[in-house]
């Protein structure tokens, strides 16, 4: 081994790349179905009257959010960790039988939990807490998978050759710690099994049922502390980890500023969790908390834009790459969507704006310009960068990649513009009064008026899905082609060869 460059072992990374793509297709397909169900309610009966219970909007909706968050995104996070981790720590997973086994257990257990989630949500077994719908048996599975992920991270760090932790590793560590804390506290519940056996009865009702430890306002507080920060530590932090590694690697440019990355990292860690309160403006949580949520959301612009600007400036003097490389296009537009989305969020968190925006489709639009434009683009870009190195083959088609880029960009733009108009229309109509002080519209008026926007949204989502299928095809053709790369491609930064 002494005089040869390190060979990295991508077995686990490949496995998670596979689930990223498959669960991405599933999550996005369900999303498109949901979008058309809102525009054309007949789509609820897509598999006929008999299966309506399972194809209904209400059953598919949590399945869509969870498939995208915990299926597509999280798989992407795991896939990139098992790729990036080895490379920036300068150690191969093959060097440790233990870590290799742990990685594989991580993958298979993850699959088991995903399967359990799908079955339980179709069956209507849910706690109703958004992005934390799973009942306690599945929660325990999630915690086990997460602990294994943590062991994987710290295990690899433990045997590293590179002494200093690269920026991406900071973000992966934060992802692990943040989600661990949030998930545990939000999902605290008492299984009714325990409750009934404590009073001398047992075997009453559904064995998997539980009661939240928190009631009413407190429950809402913990839920949105979790809900907002699941976005932070699932959709922001690990995706920043990806761009800090993949953009410099792909472009051959060093990160613009180390100081800016320090500032934005610690700033993000400190500020993000305060902002959860902005989901509860005008609710029954104490006023000071609502104000804190609102103010800190605005402050959050600083660390978010810090990382985004750091990325954009990394391309300083190399902007021709954006024109020539579709992969750089994905990353740069992703960063731009990140800036855009982290400006839009704080605006929606301002109390007077929130009064209109809350409960409307504008919020849905906000989520999707972030997830489609930032998270989706970055994960696909990361996988595109990894594919030639992992499979030792050139990407099958660069022009297909470019076509995909434009189709998906159009999809995202259609999505968020239609949802902006829908949301603001809805919010304004709800509050409209006539000259006598009576409500100007009945609720159903505010629903029927949205039909064209819902249709446009559906088309936008469909375009994005088509682009994703092109991505999947491109990766598949890359995988199955004849190997052309004799060795791994070597680039300069980050952290040298």
């Amino acid at each position: 081994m002494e005089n040869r460059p390190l060979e990295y072992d991508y077995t686990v990374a490949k496995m998670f790349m596979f689930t990223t793509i498959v669960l991405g297709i599933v999550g996005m397909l369900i999303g498109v179905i949901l979008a058309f169900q809102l525009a054309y309610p007949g789509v609820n009966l897509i598999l006929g009257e008999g299966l309506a219970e399972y194809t209904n909007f209400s059953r598919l909706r949590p399945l869509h959010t969870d498939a995208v968050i915990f299926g597509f995104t999280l798989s992407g996070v795991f896939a990139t960790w098992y790729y990036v981790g080895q490379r920036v720590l300068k150690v191969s997973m093959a060097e440790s039988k233990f870590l290799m086994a742990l990685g594989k257990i991580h993958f298979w257990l993850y699959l088991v939990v995903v399967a359990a989630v799908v079955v339980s949500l179709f069956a209507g077994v849910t706690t109703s807490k958004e992005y934390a719908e799973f009942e306690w048996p599945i929660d325990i599975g999630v915690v086990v998978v997460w602990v294994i992920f943590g062991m994987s991270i710290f295990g690899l760090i433990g045997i590293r050759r590179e002494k200093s932790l690269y920026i991406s590793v900071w973000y992966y560590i934060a992802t692990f710690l943040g989600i661990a804390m949030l998930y545990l506290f939000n999902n605290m519940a008492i299984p009714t099994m325990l409750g009934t056996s404590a009073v001398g009865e047992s075997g009453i009702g559904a064995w998997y049922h539980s009661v939240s430890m928190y009631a009413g306002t407190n429950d809402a507080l913990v839920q949105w502390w979790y809900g907002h920060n699941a976005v932070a530590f699932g959709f922001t932090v690990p995706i920043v980890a990806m761009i800090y590694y993949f953009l410099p690697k792909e472009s051959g440019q060093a990160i613009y500023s180390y100081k800016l990355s320090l500032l934005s990292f610690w700033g993000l860690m400190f500020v993000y969790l305060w902002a959860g309160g902005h989901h509860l403006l005008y609710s029954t949580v104490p006023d000071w908390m609502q104000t804190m949520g609102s103010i800190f959301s605005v402050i959050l612009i600083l660390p978010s834009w810090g990382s985004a600007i750091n990325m954009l400036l990394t391309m300083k003097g190399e902007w021709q790459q954006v024109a020539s490389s579709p992969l750089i296009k994905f990353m740069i537009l992703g960063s731009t969507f990140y800036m855009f989305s982290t400006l839009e969020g704080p605006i929606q968190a301002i109390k007077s704006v929130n009064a209109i925006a809350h409960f409307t489709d504008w919020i849905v639009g906000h989520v999707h310009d972030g997830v489609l434009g930032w998270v989706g683009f970055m994960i696909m870009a990361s996988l595109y960068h990894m594919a030639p190195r992992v499979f030792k083959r050139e990407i099958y088609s660069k022009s297909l990649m470019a076509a995909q880029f434009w189709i998906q960009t159009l999809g995202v733009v259609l999505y968020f513009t239609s949802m902006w108009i829908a949301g603001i229309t809805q919010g304004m109509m709800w509050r409209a009064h006539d000259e006598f002080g009576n409500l100007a519209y009945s609720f159903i008026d505010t629903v029927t008026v949205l039909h064209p926007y819902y249709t446009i949204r559906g088309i936008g989502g469909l375009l994005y899905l088509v682009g994703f299928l092109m991505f999947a095809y491109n990766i598949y053709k890359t995988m199955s082609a004849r190997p052309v790369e004799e060795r791994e491609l070597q680039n300069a930064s980050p952290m040298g060869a």
Partner: protein
Amino acid sequence: MFHWLEKHPFFFAVGVFVTIAFAGLVEILPNFAQASRPVIGTAPYSTLELAGRHVYIKNSCNACHSQLVRPFKSETDRYGHYSLSGEYAYDRPFLWGSKRTGPDLMRVGNYRTTDWHENHMKDPASVVPGSIMPAYKWMFTNKADIDTAYAEQLTVAQYFSVPYNQPVPMKDGSSVVVKMGGSVAEANAIALEEAKLIAADMRDQDVKDAVARGEIPEIVALIAYMNSLK
């Protein structure tokens, strides 16, 4: 300092964790120190209502309907008095929702009737022309899970001192007692009595027959829950 942290992963992780956890400590703990206290007029859910709440959750009704009236004239005009924290004291989990594809349901019991709900769940567009809500026909045949509702009652009475079988003060100075059965059989009997009152106001003959046979379809429980939202 940061260079040093970047070479010592353990201390780095501790630093990150403390920084993340700080906001939670400041924002969340103070409210938790105060237990949720019900406002006068808020009673715990009866067995049937709780079973209906489970049907509501099972079908993710909260994905489209909120249960939170904000303190704006337009909302109080449309839905009634704005929400108070103590009204949610027995809500585990809370069901405020985050999106209003349909209207708020916080006080729907004040302005919708049993047969309205019945028609609405069978064919939403028949009572609200233009509605994009899908039908929920299976609720008319699926059986409500009374046993699980009873298990939940036992649990919350045990761990969270929810006052079942005790007088609960009402706004007019009177008090009500929400009964919880002493056994599964008794709980089912109490729920069935309540179900009969609901079914009497319904039109669906199959549902009426089922209740007469001693069975409780999901729709009956759901309507009991809807009617309790006031």
